[in-house]
Structure formats: C-alpha cells, structure tokens
C-alpha cells in the first residue's frame, strides 16, 4: 500500500504570488481550470494501490475543508488535511505527522511540494524505486536545468550506472551539476528512522543549550536529511524529461497554465474547448489552440479565445472579446471588444468595453534547452518595475477604453484611467 503527502506550506509563504494569494490560499489557485494541488491529487490517483493522500500545511483547516471534501467526492480516495501548529518545514511536518503517515502500514509514500507543476511520472518513480530494492530509502525525481539556473535549486551528482546520488548540495554558490531536485520524492517508511535521528540529535542540542531558540522541530528535508544521505548508497534519483516548473510568482502561473492545458490534449480532451471546425456549432466562440472554458462560463459566440486560455466558473466573456495566454478567474466579466493578453483577471473583476489588459510574458528562454522560469524580482536594480504579466486582484474594476500594461492591481480597486508599469495599491 502507498500514500502521498502534499506539502503546501501556509499563509506566510507564497508572498511572491500576491495579489492572487490575498483572497485564496495559493495551493488552491486554479491553473488550467483546476486548483494547483488538484493536479497533484490527480497524478496520485493514477498510481495503483495508493490509498491515501495527506495534505500538510499550516493554513487554517477551514481554508481547505471544502476543497478536500470536493476532492474526496470526485476521486473516491481518502484525503485528509493535516494542519501543522507552526511552520515545521518539509521533513519537520512529515515527522510530526509520522503516525498518520505510517498508519495502515504503507511500504512507501510520495512527498510532493505543492508549488511545483509537472507531468508527474509517479508510476515510473515507483517502478524505479522497487528496482533498487531494500537499499533505496529515497528516490528524488530530478530534472535538468541550465548551468546558471541550477544554482537556485538543490543540485544532484549522480552515478550514471547505478543512479545513486553521490553528492547533494542545496543552492550552491558555484556550479555543481545541472541535474536538480524537482521537489517530488518517493520515500520508504524507513526514512522515519533517519528523520528521527535528526530530530533526536536536535533535542540533544537543545538540552545542551546549543540551538539559540530555534524551534527544534523544524527539519529541512533537503539540508538535514537528503544531504547526509548522499553518497551512502541509499539515495537515488530518477531523471525525467517531462515538463516541470515551479510556481513561485504569478507570472509562472501563465506558463504552468499553458503546459497543463497541453497535457489535457493528451489525457483529458474533454477539458478542452472544441475548435469550431470540430464542433460545427455556430453558437460557440472561436477557439485557437488549447483553451479551457468552465461549463458555467458564458462566452459570447463572437469572442476569440486562445491559445492557452483558462476561463473560470461563471465568468462572462462579451461579444468581440479577444483573450490570449491568460487566466480569467471565476465570476470575472470582460465586456465587448476588449483584449486580454498575458494577464490574470482575478475573481469577480470587471473589464469595460474596448479596453486592453496586457502583460509581458516571462517564459523560460525557448532557445535554451532545459531553461526554467526565471522568477525575476518585482523591481530591477534601478528600482523600476520589471515588465511582467498584468494581474488584476479579485473584484477589480477596469473602465472602458483604457490600457492596463504590465501592471499589478490589488483587490477591490476601482481604476479610472490607464496605467502602465505600475503597482496599484
């Protein structure tokens, strides 16, 4: 029997995802029409004999309750949200809830960071882990990055013949390896002995007076567990060429949206809007490429959507509207003839007629193999706003006939004019 643990952190995390995380926990932000971590859950449900999914974080339980019950209903699998009393970090949370994870005697469990998006090859990881026999304690899913970008991740040096991890270092300052930790793991239950050893030595330090007020329950999976395991022959890595990305900034949501929609084309055709030629339906809007339209959204037949657009529940898209490379969240309203490019339109936001809401994509360089999202800071070294996607927080009003370019608008703001390269508080 198997289990999965999805680590979602808490409200103090994901600040770079503002203003979208101001009204909704970031793990529930819809990408390609589904809350971010529903993609994790769906990947788990495709693993045979996986009996339970535990979501770990320190969001209030009420934030997740509805989502969890909806997921149970939809996927007919055990799902529980376990709330940490404080931020315990990756391994600390797992250790704190070790009894919950171990109960029912699973042989192994997946650990997935909630803020990664990927075509998760979980079954492949399982087979790989089995092949390595009893010696395998942890299998890390790894992916290739560019030399430069690898410095922002956990770097893995691999024995090419055995797939054993010979060396592991977290965010090195000099180049170590282009193979990086993707934040998805398969752990044998024996891992708890290793984490327990770390925990106990922390307790010991505490009573010896050497922790300086640090919370001894905080244990980082990467630095405290994986790094010491490297070179012991018990830590393995499975390299994948599947699409993978972190979802740190709002800008990366557009990129993740595009890739999840692309996966639908292969696996969930029913989630994509039909192109007019396929449907032959004159009442349907024109669809270009991959587009997800929630069944309750109301899209006018003269609108043109796509490629890479998601329209949320109850959204209203008026006549002659054009939307490309964007996410329109539930209840938003885009009025006639307006254009939305490289933008996220928050829940219940309204865009008037003949307006233009446009951002600048910050996708990985397509000409560089293995390049990942850059996630640049909001401001550059001259103190100027870096051009990025345009984001409307929830319930923002954009008047008719204005342009909103590379701007971020915080929730409930009523705009009265055009804005360019501004954060509107």
């Amino acid at each position: 029997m198997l289990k999965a643990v999805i680590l979602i952190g808490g409200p103090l995390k994901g600040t770079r995802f503002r203003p979208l995380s101001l009204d909704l926990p970031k793990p529930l932000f819809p990408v390609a029409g589904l809350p971010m971590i529903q993609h994790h859950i769906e990947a788990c449900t495709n693993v045979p004999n996986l009996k339970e999914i535990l979501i770990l974080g320190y969001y209030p339980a009420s934030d997740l309750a509805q989502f969890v019950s909806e997921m149970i209903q939809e996927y007919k699998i055990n799902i529980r949200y376990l709330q940490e009393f404080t931020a315990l970090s990756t391994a600390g949370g797992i250790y704190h809830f070790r009894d919950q994870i171990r109960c029912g005697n699973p042989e192994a469990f997946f650990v997935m960071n909630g803020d990664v998006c990927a075509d998760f090859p979980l079954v492949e990881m399982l087979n790989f882990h089995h092949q390595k026999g009893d010696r395998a304690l942890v299998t890390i899913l790894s992916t290739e990055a560019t030399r430069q970008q690898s410095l922002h991740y956990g770097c893995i040096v691999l024995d090419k013949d055995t797939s054993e991890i010979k060396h592991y270092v977290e965010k090195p300052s000099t180049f170590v390896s282009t193979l990086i930790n993707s934040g998805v793991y398969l752990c044998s239950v024996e891992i708890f002995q290793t984490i327990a050893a770390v925990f106990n030595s922390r307790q010991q330090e505490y009573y010896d007076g050497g922790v300086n007020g640090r919370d001894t329950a905080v244990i980082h999976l990467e630095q405290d567990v994986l790094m010491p395991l490297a070179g012991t022959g018990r830590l393995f890595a499975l390299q994948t060429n599947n699409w993978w990305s972190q979802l740190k900034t709002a800008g990366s949501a557009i990129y993740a949206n595009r890739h999840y929609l692309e996966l639908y084309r292969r696996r969930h055709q029913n989630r994509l809007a039909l192109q007019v030629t396929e449907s032959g339906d004159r009442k349907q809007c024109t669809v270009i490429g991959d587009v997800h339209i929630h069944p309750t959204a109301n899209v006018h037949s003269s609108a043109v959507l796509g490629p890479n657009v998601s329209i949320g529940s109850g959204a209203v898209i008026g006549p002659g509207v054009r939307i490309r490379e964007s996410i329109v969240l539930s209840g938003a309203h885009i009025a006639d003839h307006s254009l939305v490019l490289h933008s996220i339109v928050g829940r219940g936001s309204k865009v008037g007629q003949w307006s233009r809401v446009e951002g600048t994509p910050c996708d990985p360089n397509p000409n560089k193999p293995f390049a990942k999202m850059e996630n640049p800071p909001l401001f550059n070294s001259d103190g100027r706003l870096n051009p990025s996607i345009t984001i409307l927080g929830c319930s923002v009003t954009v008047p008719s006939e204005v342009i909103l370019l590379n701007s971020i608008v915080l929730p409930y703001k009523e705009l009265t004019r055009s804005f360019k390269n501004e954060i509107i508080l």
Partner: protein
Amino acid sequence: MCGKDLKIGAMKALILVGGYGTRLRPLTLSRPKPLVEFANKPMLLHQIEALVEAGVSEIVLAVSYRAEQMEQELSEEAKKLGVSLIFSHETEPLGTAGPLALARDILAASDEPFFVLNSDIICEFPFKELANFHRNHGKEGTIVVTKVEEPSKYGVVVYGDQGRINSFIEKPQEFVSNKINAGMYIFNPSVLKRIQLQPTSIEKEVFPGMATEGQLYAMELQGFWMDVGQPRDFLTGMCLYLSSLRQKSPGLLYSGSGVVGNVLIDPTASIGQGCRIGPNVTIGPGVVIENGVCVKRSTILRGATVKSHSWLDGCIVGWRSVVGQWVRMENTTVLGEDVIVKDELYVNGGQVLPHKSIGTSVPEPQIIM
C-alpha cells in the same frame, strides 16, 4: 497686360505654400502637403474655395519645389472653380516676403489690393470682411489677428481702437495682448516697393516699418483658427473645423447609427455593425471600418481599412493603410501611406513611414522607419 482682359474688381491672392511640409511627415512623404486631405478635402482647397467665394479670380501659389502631381491635381480643381492658378517657383528659399517680390508682375498688374496667406491655416476664412475692412481704413495693409490663450508662446500684435497697429512683441514675458498674427493679410500693390527679391521675413522685416508709418491695421478674426502644419494641431484643427461645420452646415455631418458627436464620413466609405464613431472623426472615400470598431478624434484617409474590435483615439491613418483586429492606437499616432498594423498590437504615439508593416507593439512614442 499681355492682351488679357482685366475684370474690374477681380482680386488676386498669393498663398505661401513653401517647402516639403516636413512637419507633417510621414504623410507628406507620399503627398505634397497642400494635397493632404483635411476633413476629406485637400488642405489648399479649403483656402482656394474661400478665396474664390470672396471674388478672387487669380491665385499665385508660391512653392519652393516642383511637384507635378500637385500642379496637375490642383489645376483640375481650379478649373472646376473657375479660378486661374499660377505656380511661382522659388529657386532658393525666399522667406515669407520674398515670394511677393517674385510675383511682383502679377500682383502689381492692377491697383486692386491682393490677399496673402500661409497655407497651413484653417479657420472660417473672412476674406470679404477683410477686403471691406481694408478699404475702409484706406492704408497699405491689414493683417488678420486671432486670440490665443497663451500669448507668451507667440509674437503678439499691439494695436489701438481703430485697429491701427502700434507694435509687434515677440514672445512677451508679461501680458501685453492676446492677439497674434493669424497668417492672413491684404495689401495694396504699393507694399511691393518695400520688398526686395531676396530672402525676407514679412513679419520681422516688413511689418514693423509699416506699423511705424501707421500703414498697417489689424482685423480680429471671429471663430476658430488653427495652424494645422503638424499632426497634433492637424487633429485639434479638425475638431474645431467639425464643430464650426455643425454650426454652419450641419447637413454635411454624418448622422447614422453608432455615431457620436461631429463626424464626417464620405458616402463611399463603409461602416460595420456595432461601431462607435466619434466624436470628431473624418473618414475618407473608400474607407472600410469593420464591425465593433471605436474611433475617436481621428482622421482616416482614403482607402484605409480598420478591422474589427480595434480602438483608435487621436490618430491619422494614412491612405490605403490597414489596421488589424483588436489594435489599440492612440496619442497622435500617424500612419503613412500603405502601412500595415498587424492584429492585437498597441501603438502609442507611433509615426510610421509609408509602406511599413508593423508586427510588434510600439508602447512609447517612436518613429518607425
């Protein structure tokens, strides 16, 4: 002279057309400035028609370059109006007074006073009143003056109760007058004695002397006035012209559905469904405006196309240009002749040279070669 019958009372005029009209580029790269359509009519024709209306039968066009196309097109129009056009070519720039000396033989052929005007002026041309006013005071010259809001940017004219001009003050720092030279004059042929055939400024080198001698009067212009020699003022002038048209001959303005405010649409243009045109728009012959387009404060020249759902404010769209779908253009964007703006682009204050195809947005004002 030359055996030609001279009609008694037939007046003459000289229009200072000048050079290449560089201030109105990129439009003037394709068409000489006098032929650029202002409110669906070549700019110079507004003046020629007004002069003919006031009884002028002979017009000298002072040009500093040869333009076969212009001479041919204007001569045809002149024939229809029954006025004779004489092209007077400067071989070197002669300023604003020199061209009068060059046309001396024509202007001095009779004792009748003659009109002189700058070609970039658009207003309710007061030529009849000007001739009457001039005859009444009986001196050598009269200049038309117009009121401006910010006189410190111009040379102002100071004159007395009867209109007799005392002095000209260039860019006054303190308020002395809010009247400026409107670029329209009437002179007795005797004024030609003051002008040599050499580069001369009429404003700076001729007028001050005339004023000192008490020979120069000012007549105040009623209604709007605009120098439309550059794109921004061209559009402002268009707004003023259209509202004057609303007062004078509202029947010429378009009053179909989807139109807001003062709009001039050529009968051969086509307007799609669900558009909002206006206020202050002129649409030339053969123009196609597709469905769901919004155009404000803009001039769309002959044969241009604006595709569906686009939004234009403060633009001049050149002849046969094509603006794609969901395009936003604003802030005195000027497209030259035969420019293509691809779908979904944003053009902010772009000046686009002729025959150019634009495939990426122009977010800040820029000249596109």
